[in-house]
């Protein structure tokens, strides 16, 4: 199908709703009610699990076929560097900047 700007606009509006609903309703529901302690204890494990899943998606999953790939060597090496730097420095800026520089340099060497 050939897209025009009106169709792009409707895509954005529909996209807004599918993005907004999962952001809003849990917040609405869980801030208004008395939530059992176990739920909060469970939620504490969400960030670490989600971030790991996102990193795995970035490094080991092909973004189009969703196949497992081990070809992003520069990203893998840079990830190890970022972990060490983050652990040592506890600084977000340094971790991100060192990560970008290392992936840039490594991708020139490893290709």
């Amino acid at each position, binding site marked *: 199908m050939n897209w025009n700007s009106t169709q792009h606009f409707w895509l954005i509006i529909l996209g807004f709703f599918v993005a907004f609903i999962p*952001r809003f309703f849990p917040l609405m529901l869980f801030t208004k009610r008395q939530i059992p302690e176990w739920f909060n204890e469970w939620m504490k494990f969400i960030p670490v699990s989600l971030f790991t*899943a996102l990193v795995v998606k970035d490094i080991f999953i092909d973004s189009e076929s969703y196949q497992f790939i081990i070809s992003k060597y520069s990203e893998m090496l840079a990830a190890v560097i970022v972990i060490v730097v983050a652990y040592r*420095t506890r600084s977000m800026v340094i971790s991100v900047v060192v990560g970008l520089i290392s992936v840039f340099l490594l991708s020139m060497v490893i290709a």
Partner: protein
Amino acid sequence: MNKRRPNPKQVPDPDEPLWRSTLRVAMPLNLSYVPIGLACGILLHAAGFNTLLTGLVSLLIFSGGAQFLIATMLTINSPLLSIVLMLFFLELRYALLSSSLSPYLKGQSNRFLFIFAVSLNDENYAINYLKFATDKKWTGKEALMVEHYSLLFWAVSNVIGSLVGSALKIDLGVVNFALTALFLYMIVMQIKNRLTILICLFSGVFAALCMMLTKSTLGLVISTLIASLLGFLLETTLKKHLPDSHWLWKLRSPGAKKSVVENTEDN
């Protein structure tokens, strides 16, 4: 203690205005949004989005992953409904983000929650979650300011990217690593004990499996739900039956050399 050099980052100036202290918290994220936003704007331009719509999509959807997905699917001429469906799978994980932030936003008005939800995304969640968990003075107001700073930088970079169009070549693989690095940093900050490392490993392997099986980002949601549930169940069981288990030992923060992360280059 008093031998330590004063670090301006760790001793905040009490007189610093709020807009500046929250901006400082948001700044690393803002800066990594600049190249990624530029790249995203360029891709959307190539996919046929005009500049006005690029600005609109950055404000309303405000998600790097979703916008890259839109650009990719438009270039292969996917039908509207299949793009929206893919977006739905991709954005479903926000239900987990907002659930896990809810303990910190109790008592806020519906209007606040609405505005907060509109500009919530992975990266500003990461920053706000860390601040909520470690800084008692961090409230919804500060968190919302961080969201809005990141939204501003994201939208402006997207619009500029759309305007320069193909005049600028950006290596997406390299630029996107800024976000990977941000998430890696967040993981390191979240590691509290050996159990968390175990859950990390499990989550990583399981996420890869789930994404391969579902062929979509729905796998992200499934694996996150199960990995976090497993972590919770293991921790509860260990605390109840084996409170001295070494899995629950706290890890020393970086200054301390004897740490669980086995790095051989300890000096």
